[in-house]
């Protein structure tokens, strides 16, 4: 796959279709992956990588990149195409300036999960019939493949690209919520008592160190000036000084992306404290589906976002009181 992508990238650079390539490059470790922009074939040969660890959603980088001179090639996994579409819809990405090549999606691997098995010095990984073979500095190790999969890939919502100019590999299909089970954890929480939910979230959100990684990686959080950084907004804060502020940051952030979040799962992937932040977004997605009809942000570029829309017969907020346990 990486080979085919590199060839495609070099070809498009050579024929002048694009003048830059958005992809990934490796850092010090094999699992230390950063999105990167390549400008020459040499750079691509040297650093371009696409493997089991290239999970990062690169669509957000195109907000800035698509406003630069010339066209950029972007390799997008199915989940990334939803984010891309959503940003096109919000006029954040200039579609004409991006050449999208769809590439097969994950599942991608979570290095933390491998390291949790006590495996260190990872050099190379390979999936062999459900067993992950890991070459390390200290010899070969194995673990069950499914145990190493990233959380966001475990509940994959779609293997279908919703936008592309060209496709490498085969097109997949949308996965239903029943099959992906992506709302299971939200539902489990909903079925708890209010006190249990409160305790759950207090335990989770109290871990927050306000590093802003979730915000900075989120393809829906592309504001020119975030309200939390803006002293005039009345809610700006750089560090949570109180449990209230821990709550507020995550409630407001989830609310601001409600109806726009494509459920790419990057927030939870990058959280250094392992807070399951995606559950907040999924709660909104689940509610929107239940209250206002199935809606998948990023599926298209024309439909109205649920919060910018209404129906005269929408349910009343009292529905919150009427359902489930307290």
């Amino acid at each position: 796959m990486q080979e085919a992508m590199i060839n495609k990238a070099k070809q498009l650079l050579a024929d002048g279709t694009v003048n830059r390539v958005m992809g990934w490059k490796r850092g010090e470790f094999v699992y230390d992956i950063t999105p990167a922009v390549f400008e020459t074939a040499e750079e691509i040969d040297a650093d371009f990588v696409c493997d089991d660890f290239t999970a990062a959603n690169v669509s957000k980088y195109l907000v800035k990149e698509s406003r630069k001179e010339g066209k950029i090639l972007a390799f997008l996994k199915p989940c990334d195409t939803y984010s891309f579409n959503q940003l096109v819809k919000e006029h954040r990405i200039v579609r004409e300036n991006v050449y999208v090549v769809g590439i097969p999606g994950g599942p991608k691997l979570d290095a933390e999960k491998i390291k949790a098995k006590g495996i260190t010095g990872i050099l190379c990984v390979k999936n062999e019939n459900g067993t992950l073979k890991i070459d390390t500095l200290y010899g070969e190790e194995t673990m069950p493949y499914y145990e190493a999969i990233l959380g966001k890939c475990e509940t994959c919502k779609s293997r279908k690209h919703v936008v592309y100019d060209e496709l490498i590999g085969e097109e997949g299909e949308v996965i239903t919520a029943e099959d992906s089970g992506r709302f299971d954890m939200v539902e489990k929480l909903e079925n708890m008592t209010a006190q249990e939910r409160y305790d759950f979230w207090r335990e989770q959100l109290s871990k927050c160190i306000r590093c802003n990684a979730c915000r900075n990686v989120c393809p829906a959080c592309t504001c020119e000036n975030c309200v939390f950084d803006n002293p005039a907004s009345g809610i700006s804060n750089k560090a949570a000084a109180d449990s209230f502020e821990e709550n507020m940051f995550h409630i407001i952030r989830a609310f601001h992306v409600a109806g726009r979040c494509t459920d790419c799962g990057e927030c939870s992937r990058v959280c250094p404290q392992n807070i399951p932040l995606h559950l907040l977004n999924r709660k909104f997605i689940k509610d929107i589906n239940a209250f206002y009809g199935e809606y998948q942000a990023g599926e298209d570029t024309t439909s109205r976002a649920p919060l910018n829309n209404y129906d005269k017969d929408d349910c009343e907020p009292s529905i919150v009181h009427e359902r489930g346990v307290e």
Partner: protein
Amino acid sequence: MQVNENTNFEPVIVAFCCNWCSYAGADLSGTNRLNYPTNVKIIRVPCSCRVNPMFILRAFQRGADGVILCGCHPGDCHYTSGNYFTRRRITLLYSMLDFLGIERDRTRLEWVSAAEGAKFAATMQEFTDAVRKLGPNRRLEDLRCRKQ
């Protein structure tokens, strides 16, 4: 659910009222001398759709024990569609607060027309009673703002 035994507890209730219907409804309950608790303090906004979730959280942060939002009945919005957007936003916000384990009875949305002075007074009485029963807001408070 904690029930406050301390009967001296007087909740702070913030009521956001749209200028055209609910604020006028509140005025009408005054004109008709319909009593409701002094705990309720009204903030006038042009339309219920002006109420940002930030305002509601801010109220809880600064010491409110309950927040109620009132607007024109759906279909009667002075601005035609404002309260339809309110309804979606607030439904989701309240659902999220519930998801985080915040007591459901601390938040409420009620449609009150300019003619419904009695409904306004009754709603405020009911809501204050419900919040008083819940006791002080502890789950969404800012300790720095707690009153002595």
